[in-house]
């Protein structure tokens, strides 16, 4: 039993194994392997659209525009209904006077 083994005697077995494996040599990644990994990564992401062109983003924008249009269209008749104007002629200063008095 070495000095190091004596130190590990009181430690949990799982921790001892983890510490031993941490001391193992780091796997060597050659330049060739590095290039292959980079090439695979590029091929994987080549067909992917930028974030702003992905469908969910456009769908959100379209939904916002539609909601805005509908809200505005729904709001206009309500405003017109509240105006004390006669519908048979264009608005003029007498309508402004009526509104100003309210």
């Amino acid at each position, binding site marked *: 039993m070495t000095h190091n083994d004596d130190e590990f005697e009181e430690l949990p077995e799982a921790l001892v194994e983890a510490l031993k494996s941490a001391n193992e040599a780091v796997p060597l990644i050659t330049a060739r392997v590095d290039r292959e990994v980079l090439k695979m990564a590029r091929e994987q992401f080549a067909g992917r659209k930028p974030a702003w062109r992905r469908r969910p983003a456009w769908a959100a924008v379209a939904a916002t525009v539609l909601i805005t249009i509908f809200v505005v269209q729904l709001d206009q008749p309500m405003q017109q209904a509240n105006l004390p104007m006669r519908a048979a002629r264009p608005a*003029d*200063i*007498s309508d*402004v*006077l*009526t509104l*100003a*008095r309210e």
Partner: protein
Amino acid sequence: MKKWLVALVLLSLGTFGHSYADDANIRFTAVDIYLDSAEPVAAWQFELGDRAGVMKVVGVEQGDSPAYAHAPYYDREAVRLGEADRIIVADYSLADVVELPSGRVRVATVHLMLSGDDDADFNLFLVTATTYDGVVTDARISFDVRTGSEQ
């Protein structure tokens, strides 16, 4: 080639000369607008144009009634840009009925720039005039060019 060049230069001179002559005949005048109503008027609106096409509105001034103390409403942007070859002017008052004007009263003065050799042929009509209660009243509108010729 030289003939064409000379003709082009002469044509250009003729064109510039013509527009210069038009610009030289620019003059300014003011038109007083009068409203005549038996009942007190709480709101009025008129349109002034020019059949001859020689006028541009350069400003609008309020009338004589204290009930309409400020300059009336009109398209200030068109006037500022010199594009008002006709104008709609309107105003209303929230004053008490006893303070509203009746009879013949100057409601506005329109300041004009006239250009060209022709005289202006003004076209003035009353869009509406209403009483304190908001009822359309039977009013008459007329104008007086500052030279003194009322029409």
